[in-house]
């Protein structure tokens, strides 16, 4: 089962080392991790996608992460109504012959073309992971040169912030 956790941490040196160290030591199965600054200068928010066997394992992940000195708060966004997004940049082979077909695909997915040259173009897409997976799948036929994905971030709907949950 897959879960999404919003982890608020103090923006201190070494905090990411502590988090990744813990994940590796406890052998947690992390599928994605995305970090960035927040509305508070000294706070960083990390969205962690974790795959666990059951609720007990999830409880372990949350409890062990909570023990890290610089972890301020963990909110489980899995069961709250939330918006989950990931950003992807995909570099695809494109020549005269298939470029228009590619443009059609990009349009269907409501993606954007952000760079074009004679041989390739770069597609930008934000959305749920499954949507990005689907686009990547389709683009495989054209020849993907590289894929960059941010890992998912999530925010709950409604007025309450994760720090107050």
């Amino acid at each position, binding site marked *: 089962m897959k879960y999404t956790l919003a982890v608020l941490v103090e923006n201190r040196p*070494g905090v990411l*080392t502590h988090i990744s*160290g*813990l994940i590796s030591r406890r052998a947690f199965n992390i599928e994605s991790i995305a970090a960035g600054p927040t509305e508070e200068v000294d706070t960083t928010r990390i969205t962690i996608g974790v795959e666990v066997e059951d609720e007990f394992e999830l409880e*372990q992940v949350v*409890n062990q992460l*909570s023990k890290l*000195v610089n972890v301020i708060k963990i909110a489980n966004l899995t069961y709250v109504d939330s918006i989950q997004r990931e950003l992807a940049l995909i570099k695809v082979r494109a020549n005269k012959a298939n470029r228009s077909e590619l443009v059609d695909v990009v349009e269907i997915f409501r993606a954007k073309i952000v760079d074009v040259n004679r041989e390739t173009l770069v597609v930008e897409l934000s959305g749920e992971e499954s949507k990005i997976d689907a686009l990547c799948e389709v683009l495989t036929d054209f020849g993907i040169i590289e894929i960059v994905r941010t890992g998912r971030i999530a925010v709950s709907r409604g007025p309450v912030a994760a720090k107050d949950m």
Partner: protein
Amino acid sequence: MKMLGAEVVIECLKAEEVDIVFGYPGGAVLTLYDALFKTDFPHILTRHEQGAVHAADGYARATGKTGVCFATSGPGGTNLVTGIATAYMDSIPLVAITGQVGVSLIGKDSFQEADICGITTPITKHNYLVKKIQDLPCVMKEAFYIARTGRPGPVLIDISKDVFNDTLDFVYPETVCLRGYRSLFAGDSNQIDLVIEALEKAEKPVIFVGGGVNLSGTAEEVRRLVDVTGIPVISSLMGLGCIPSDASEHLGMVGMHGTYAANMATIDCDLLMGIGVRFDDRVTSLVQNFAPEAMIIHFDIDPAEVNKNVRADFKVIGDLRWSLPLLCEKIAERNMGKEQWARADWVGLVQEWKREKPLASSLPAGGIRPQAVIEKVSELTQGESIIVTDVGQHQMWTAQSYNFNAQRSFLTSGGLGTMGYGLPAAIGAQITLPEKNVILFTGDGSIMMNCQELATLADNGLPVKIIVMNNQVLGMVNQWQRMFYGKRYSHSSTKGCTDFVKLAEAMGVAGLRVTKSEELDTVLEKALKMKGPVLIDVLLPETEDVLPMVAPGGRLDQMVLRGIIG
């Protein structure tokens, strides 16, 4: 007043009421050592950084105070690693201070540079790299706070050489501001009511005590609980001493080398109340088969311990200094007699197990029984000693055969099982408790891992008594090879030219030897009366198994009770 960073460290130690540090100097900490010199701050020079960190650990275990050690950058720091991991596994409050290369040299593979924060991240409760002197007082304050509050543990502070040499107007902060750190004391008292209801219903309850009781100093509450209820008690290795080993309710240690009664009770009980335990695999064996019939109650300070290895039906999260007095109080309010808490048929059954199969030696008469050595020391010291061990068979025999009766009286590396822990830990304990008998049971293998600390022992005139349980084998390895590897004794003999008596004497420690069982009592009596440090080399038969033994993966009631010696 302007102060050097090195002096700031010393001032912080004073503010934290640290009375001694253990350490070893080097390039990155020269200014710190200069400050020690100028302030005359108490410091013990060990002969290896591993000795320093284990000594700080022994000091902490024996007293409950936070142990402190110093080491230089690079190899100094890496030599601390085993000791930090040892302390981490057993939740020992420790502050390790290492020097780091100059700020501009960090990250350049500079001389004696090692990323000790990176290295120790998985084995510390927290760690810091200090690159600015302004951060130093706050970091020191936080480090001590984190090390000793909540579930204790080691904290490492890596301080750049430049910081020691920089100056600052020193003010020690009065409070810490750690937004993400919660050190819980009181928990949910409703849970305790639920526990009591469950206890009332239980027909075959068992109390299981662990290291948390020793760490929190709540042995008295545990004893009160047992006195009032008469519920049988089992103990983990780390829980020994919480309740007198020979108390009638005490069934002994549980687990791989647990007693017959303790292991049988675990399998048969219908309620198991764990207090300050973490259900280590050496206790549970295969978790699916651990206490299969029982409702599990778990008292612990660390929420992450609950449901980690064994699923708990009730949890009481909080400091045992909060939960145990409350539990005792609420139990007393019930005004129930012992026979209501612990039914006669159940108590009768566990007592029967105790009588039926007490600990036994499989050794033929003739040689010195290792258990006899421990029993004799137990008799001579009447439990009034600090007992320290290394790791191996001698450790298990000590756990099984010594009559403990005080909390924090048994210092042993439980979680990590670190050979070489014993001697330096004994040094740390003896320094802080000069009036106590400190006795180390070690092995011919273990003593050689940190035997350099015999010099520290002698040079500081510390009267530790070292008993080398010399079976001339890495006994525990040997036993596994005998039981599970067709007696192919691959590299587990220590037989050779080493003379432990001479080794001791060379470093200024008196040496005695026991070769025959008739000499045992007199030599031990004599040794324990001697003023200074003594090493007693006791020659034991090579092959004796630690029994009972539950084979790895076996169920606790499937014990090997008789050896296959020969």
